[in-house]
């Protein structure tokens, strides 16, 4: 990929009207160096920018847009009819003055009708800047962030500050300005982030995605890409030893599919789209609205991954909403692609590279995956994803922090001229469970009313009700307040959530209590609410509305004058998620155990007794003497019985460790320190196990060969009884074969490939005579 050039311009302001930039701003100095670089991928964006330039009159904002030289944008620039020999410069000026009619670009000089003249003088590119480009390239490799992007971010922020100081008002993000003109679209669409820097929250996650997608650059943008030579590999390794142990011969990421998951409305789809665009891809989206069953989608996906689009940009496949029972076909297609890729890769590693590329014709055409695939889902553990999951780089999306979200909402409110207090915004955020999309929907449609009617119409959220319950109003009688709260709860029908909220919160508030009678009293009421809410799922009639009484009991017991501040209600969502995760691991583990063992164990006993003890069995205390070989064998047997595999992995400090797959240590151990210790022990003892496994594999191969030999003996007879006998014989032979294995280490090989090697009846015992 062509590196985005970083070029500095000297802008000399010859005749400059100071008022345009605000007095006292440092930009008014006659010779000032601005380097604003903003990457544009979108044609539309550029046109919009031009139109702004012609018609709109924004106040006092000067933007120097340096459009990067990448070929992707060349079309756009020629259309914009800006001529420049080496580097295209688009200089956009926005004035309070009427439309600017004519601009001439003469040797980097701009004339304006009012007699102002701007000269853009190109700064000499020094060797130093070349170095900085080199530097930025290295940076890019380690962080996945373009240094220029970071510069751009800084610059954008500075520009924002400037505008703010000029206008003293709206601080819109630059990319938002463009969408302002259209009032009719949904806010959720209107305020959808357009660049990487517009995202709220999840910063590290976003960077991870960007990094992952950048790893494809080598394959996607380098025209005559070649596999990484061994020398390069070495230099890479020496450079960042902490980096992945794995290395793809084509420099692609280790896992070829990125799976993003998280609750709805956090912007998963948006992030995937924006990042794909930012990295220079054309997005091809396949979502649940498309037909995605089996064959139909297969060709579509294959074609899009192997051909290029009209715009010349490579395609990035975004598979949205892949969790769902109807998605088995689609998932199958994806996992097939991955399998083909793995096969091809293996073939590649076995043959020489020159040979490999010659073999492109016909059926043996290598089916290498050359384009990134991003999959998005809500539920990571849906059964449809079972097959895909372990092949994916999994990215978990979390809720943005309340503060970040609040900032963003405030910004939007300001721009849309809505007056809402922080408290109200906070309530909206909590009401929607940090779902940004639904926050915006509420703001747009709920917020259109005036303040009074809003209050009357909307029911109080469960969150605020919970807070009300614990507050005792000193100016009212208790019975009066009780009535009010009863009304409030009656309007909100979300009783379960209210009660659960009360339960979560009541430890954090103050109340008068002697001898712990209140918590023990409320436990009886909570039992009542549990039973009542269960009736929703039973056929005998819904009684869940009685649950509201439990909330009132909370008021009766725990309301106190000292509770004035609203408290933050904790959520036990995290525990549920972890439990789901662990239960899933246990299920996988259980499904992999050998049938004999499986019939002996109940799935419940795994977390209770088996797994904790398995920890000890798998990590024997070996000091490498003769006895320990038996121990190793034992451990390997246990490993085999549970169908566990040993995997390389990294701990949080990027040390190489060996772990089992599925990884169960988080279930068997509670303390973090203990988990860590167990990991260390595993890393110590697993190399020995791996060796033993290898040895076992070899002996197994010899077994099967022996078995084939036995079978050849009695081929003449065909009667059924004999056939049955023969199976038993084989079983016996197998048993016999096992016994000498442990005592005498002599292996017999028949002539492989000669089926008539044994013509006469030779008994196993004859061989030993």
């Amino acid at each position: 990929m062509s590196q985005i050039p970083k070029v500095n311009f000297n802008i000399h302001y010859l005749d400059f009207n100071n008022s345009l930039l605000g007095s006292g701003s440092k930009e008014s100095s006659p010779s000032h160096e601005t380097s604003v670089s903003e990457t544009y991928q979108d044609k539309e964006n550029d046109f919009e920018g031009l139109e702004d330039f012609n018609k709109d009159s924004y106040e006092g904002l000067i933007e120097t847009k340096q459009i990067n030289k990448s070929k992707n944008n060349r079309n756009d620039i020629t259309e914009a009819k800006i001529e420049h020999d080496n580097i295209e410069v688009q200089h956009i000026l926005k004035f309070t003055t009427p439309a600017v009619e004519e601009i001439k670009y003469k040797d980097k000089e701009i004339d304006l009708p009012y007699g102002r003249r701007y000269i853009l003088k190109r700064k000499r590119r020094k060797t130093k800047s070349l170095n900085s480009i080199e530097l930025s390239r290295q940076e890019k490799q380690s962080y996945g962030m373009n240094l220029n992007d970071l510069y751009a971010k800084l610059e954008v922020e500075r520009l924002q500050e400037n505008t703010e100081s000029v206008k003293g008002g709206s601080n819109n993000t630059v990319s938002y300005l463009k969408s302002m003109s259209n009032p009719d679209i949904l806010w959720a669409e209107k305020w959808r982030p357009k660049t990487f820097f517009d995202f709220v929250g999840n910063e590290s996650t976003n960077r991870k995605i960007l990094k992952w997608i950048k790893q494809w650059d080598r394959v996607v943008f380098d025209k005559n890409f070649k596999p990484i030579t061994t020398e390069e590999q070495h230099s890479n390794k020496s450079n960042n030893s902490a980096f992945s142990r794995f290395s793809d011969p084509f420099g692609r990421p280790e896992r070829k599919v990125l799976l993003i998951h998280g609750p709805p409305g956090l912007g998963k789809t948006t992030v995937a789209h924006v990042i794909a665009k930012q990295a220079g891809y054309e997005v091809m989206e396949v979502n649940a609205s498309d037909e995605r069953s089996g064959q139909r989608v297969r060709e579509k996906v294959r074609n899009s991954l192997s051909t290029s689009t009209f715009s010349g940009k490579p395609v990035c496949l975004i598979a949205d909403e892949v969790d769902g029972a109807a998605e088995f076909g689609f998932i199958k297609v994806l996992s097939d692609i991955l399998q083909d890729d793995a096969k091809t890769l293996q073939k590649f590693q076995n043959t020489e590279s020159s040979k490999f590329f010659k073999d492109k014709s016909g059926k043996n055409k290598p089916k290498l995956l050359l384009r990134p695939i991003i999959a998005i889902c809500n539920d990571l553990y849906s059964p449809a994803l079972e097959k895909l999951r372990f092949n994916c780089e999994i990215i978990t999306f979390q809720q943005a922090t309340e503060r970040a979200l609040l900032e963003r909402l405030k910004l939007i409110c300001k721009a849309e001229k809505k007056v809402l207090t922080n408290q109200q915004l906070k309530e909206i955020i909590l009401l929607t469970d940090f779902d940004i999309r639904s926050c915006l929907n509420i703001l747009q449609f709920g917020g259109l009313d005036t303040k009074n009617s809003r209050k009357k119409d909307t029911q109080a959220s469960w969150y605020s009700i919970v807070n009300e319950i614990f507050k005792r109003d000193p100016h009212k009688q208790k019975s009066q307040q009780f009535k009010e709260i009863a009304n409030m709860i009656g309007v909100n029908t979300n009783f379960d959530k209210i009660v659960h909220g009360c339960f979560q919160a009541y430890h954090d508030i103050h109340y008068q209590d002697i001898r712990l009678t209140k918590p023990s009293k409320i436990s009886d009421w909570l039992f009542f609410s549990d039973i009542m809410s269960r009736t929703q799922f039973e056929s005998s009639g819904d009684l869940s509305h009685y649950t509201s009484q439990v909330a009132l009991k909370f008021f009766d017991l725990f309301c106190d004058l000292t509770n004035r501040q609203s408290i933050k209600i904790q959520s036990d969502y995290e525990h549920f998620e972890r439990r789901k995760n662990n239960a899933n691991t246990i299920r996988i583990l259980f499904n992999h155990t050998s049938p004999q063992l499986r019939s002996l164990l109940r799935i419940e006993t795994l977390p209770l007794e088996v797994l904790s003890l398995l920890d000890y069995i798998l990590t024997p205390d070996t000091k490498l003497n003769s006895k320990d070989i038996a121990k190793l064998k034992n451990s390997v047997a246990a490993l085999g019985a549970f169908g566990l595999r040993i995997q390389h992995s990294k701990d949080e400090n990027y040390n190489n460790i060996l772990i089992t797959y599925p990884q169960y240590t988080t279930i068997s151990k509670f303390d973090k320190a203990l988990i860590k210790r167990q990991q260390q022990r595993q890393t110590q003892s697993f190399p020995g196990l791996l060796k033993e496994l290898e040895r076992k594999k070899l002996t197994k191969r010899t077994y099967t060969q022996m078995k084939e030999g036995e079978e050849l003996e009695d081929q003449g007879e065909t009667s059924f009884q004999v056939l049955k006998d023969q199976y038993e014989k084989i079983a016996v032979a197998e048993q016999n074969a096992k016994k000498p294995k442990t005592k005498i280490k002599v292996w017999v090989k028949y002539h492989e490939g000669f089926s008539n090697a044994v013509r006469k009846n030779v008994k196993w015992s004859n061989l030993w005579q």
Partner: protein
Amino acid sequence: MSLWVDKYRPTNLSQLDYHSSVSARLSALSTSGDFPHLLVYGPSGAGKKTRVLSILNELFGSGVNKMKIDVRTFTTSTNKKLEFNIVSSSYHLEITPSDLGNNDRVVIQDLLKEIASTEQVDFSTGKHRFKVIIINEADSLSKDAQAALRRTMEKYSRNIRLILISNTTSNIIPPIKSRTLLIRIPAPSVNDIVQVLNKLSSKQEIPLPESETERVETLRKIAESSERNLRRALLLIEALSMQNEKLTPTTPMIQLDWESVIKKLAFNINRERNVSRISQSRSTLYELLSHCIPARIILKKLTFELIQLVNFKAKSQIIEIAAIFDERLSLGSKAIYHLEGFVAKSMVAIEDSV
């Protein structure tokens, strides 16, 4: 190629070590020609499954030990696809319907009918013309599933025999109890376990002390710390012999992590009784739950740990409270409410007794 638990498992009735009267009864059953539906119940790790497989071995020969796992898919009435694992040999199959939660009825209806409606054709011996279906965790079958089961048991008794395995009989509806022969397998006594472990040490090299008394002493210690659960004892001795050069009566036993967490919780509850302690114990309880420890097991363990710590007056009260909350746990669905309620109430009980 497996754990010792599996490797040294007795495969026929004559090899069984304890409960000889039960074994005798079972072997009489298997030779009598016909075979009833069975309901085998008893605590975890008592040897229910081992005995059931031994009976099958007696009935059908060693072919039952060649097991494989199949995955079947079922479609519910709401068109939801369910995956279901079945362990089977050519003579029997083993299902755990409670894997599917509330959809267990579908399995009982579809699968059992399908098997029951095909007759077993055995060319060799013609011993028994029925297939045996082992239903694990029968006590967690939903009421619907049990109702579906009861007619099937009679109607297709020509072709199938059911063996239900459960921990208790209390969740099983009376019609099913009346259709089955109930066999209780009690937990082995400590002496039984010592005997089994001793037998094991003759087959497998275990670094036990030489002298007879010390040897028995060590085994007894292992047996005691495994709470009369033979499976746990076998796993424990395997783990111990992997970890230690030599096993002696002084070898420290391996504490299960979740058990020590509960122990600590009980200790703290007894020591300090206030609101902040309840709040702390809540996070511990959440932690336990998220490690997939069943709520009732937590309650049970916590109760037993508590009554060791408190005085006589509080003991009986705590047991009463535990019984109440045990019921609540099985009736309700929000375990954390009830576990915390138990903690609060037992704090009050301890406070009263001091």
